[in-house]
């Protein structure tokens, strides 16, 4: 087969775009699953989700650049930051959200509270880190050459690690006692109460797990993009679009949606420029809401 040079160039570019779509898509998947989990279990929406993404990135940044932490590379960073994210999530849930649940109409109050928390965290980041963008070093530098195709290790590692994170989450949810209790509360809160599952503790643990997942996503994507105090809003919007497109409360839907949206963003960015990516997301969201409001795999009303 004889290919002219233009075609070959085009093929390279397409491959690049697909790899980029897969790697961001996998991180979106991680975030969407975390968001769906909280919504599925507590039926409340966490508007500070995007700022926990930044929190993960900032924690890693503090370790690497602020404290000069070098032990064990990124694995060492994760070993420290992930439990920290869990503790932050658990603590915030117990401290701020749990007291609200005793009141009527608490789902809406939680939304207002997390919205306030998002504003607070954004300001806090600005004060502590300044408005300048920060970036994390890549997990692995360099490129992988397969024949004439070139892949960056960074993209591959992001993809592999977020997939690993999702699988770990799947294992946690499907086989551990905590995971079973979480699913039980999501499927039938009364049934869960009857068998003696402490709902409050499960809510806090769920919130904490989702905080870990989005914080992990933050560490992964901050190598590719930049973190700044305001980027939480964009992330929040993306996670929300993925979750709504996949179907609120459907974990599998969220996974599919994440990869579709990651690809969409990569292709639109390649064809029209990066800033069109987010427009494409909103067009997709509008189309979803107009034609299939329950999302890809949502159960509908």
């Amino acid at each position, binding site marked *: 087969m004889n290919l002219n040079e233009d075609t070959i160039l085009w093929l390279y570019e397409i491959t690049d775009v697909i790899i980029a779509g897969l790697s961001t898509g996998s991180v979106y998947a991680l975030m969407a699953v975390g968001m769906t989990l909280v919504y599925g279990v507590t039926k409340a929406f966490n508007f500070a989700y995007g700022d926990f993404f930044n929190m993960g990135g900032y924690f890693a940044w503090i370790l690497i650049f602020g404290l000069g932490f070098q032990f064990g590379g990124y694995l060492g960073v994760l070993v420290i930051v992930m439990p920290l994210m869990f503790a932050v999530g658990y603590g915030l849930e117990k401290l701020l959200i749990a007291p609200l649940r005793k009141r009527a109409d608490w789902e809406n109050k939680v939304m207002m509270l997390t919205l306030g928390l998002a504003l607070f965290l954004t300001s806090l980041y600005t004060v502590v880190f300044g408005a300048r963008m920060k970036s994390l070093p890549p997990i692995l530098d360099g490129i992988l050459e397969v024949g004439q195709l070139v892949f960056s290790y960074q993209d591959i590692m992001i993809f592999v690690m977020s997939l690993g994170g999702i699988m770990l989450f799947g294992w946690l949810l499907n086989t551990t006692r905590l995971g079973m209790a979480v699913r039980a509360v999501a499927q*039938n809160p*009364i049934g869960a109460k*009857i068998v*003696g*599952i*402490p709902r409050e503790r499960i809510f806090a643990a769920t919130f904490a797990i989702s905080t870990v997942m989005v914080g992990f996503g933050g560490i992964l994507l901050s190598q590719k993009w930049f973190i700044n105090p305001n980027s939480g809003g964009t992330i929040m919007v993306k996670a929300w679009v993925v979750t709504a497109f996949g179907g609120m409360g459907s974990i599998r839907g969220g996974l599919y949606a994440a990869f579709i949206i990651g690809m969409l963003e990569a292709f639109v960015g390649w064809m029209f420029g990066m800033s069109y990516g987010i427009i494409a997301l909103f067009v997709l969201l509008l189309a979803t809401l107009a034609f299939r409001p329950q999302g890809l795999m949502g159960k509908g009303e």
Partner: protein
Amino acid sequence: MLQVSNLNAYYGESHVLRDVSVAVNQGEVVVMLGPNGHGKSTLLKSICGLVDRTEGNITYNDRDINGLATEKIVNLGLIYIAENRELFPYMTVLENLKLGAYSKNARAHEKENLERVFKLFPRLVDRKKQFASTMSGGEARMLAVARGLMSNADFLCIDEPSLGLQPSLRLEIFSTIKRINAQGKTVLLVEQNIPQIAEMADRIYVMEEGRISFEGNPDEALNNEHLKEVFLGM
């Protein structure tokens, strides 16, 4: 074993139980009868910590349990088995049973209880890997009772186990409850109908409009003129 005295229970503004006093001794099957919506279920739920506002005394093995969180009550050995079953629909039968053994007290006995439950309900063995949502009404009812037994409870609060079942399945579930009782479990059971249930009861209470209107043994209940009127319309 269980002593309820002067219990009042409320759902929001409505006052459901009015000065209810009930006692259940170890090893008994006590049946609570009464028309629908007169507070029978509320009594069971109050005992198991599932009603927000209850006033009065509930003691279990001389310990005050009124106001305790449900998970603590389950851990003490009481379990509520719901009339509408409250299973986990998208989990397998086995997972539902394992969640029944969630409480601390139950975990250590999970294996032996699973064996015992499968012996009592052999049909659940074949359905082990099936989602709870795919089961028939009778099987789901068995699963609800089985899940309750997994909690290792000594005291079972069973809410209308015959609801929505055909007569042959009703008899089956009643005889299973009798067997469970023979294995040493104490049972407080809520039902609507007298004749079928009377023979398995050690004692019978009747609840009307949130109050206990009758207390006695099955013979007395069957011959009571007022109860005949209430239940049989005679």
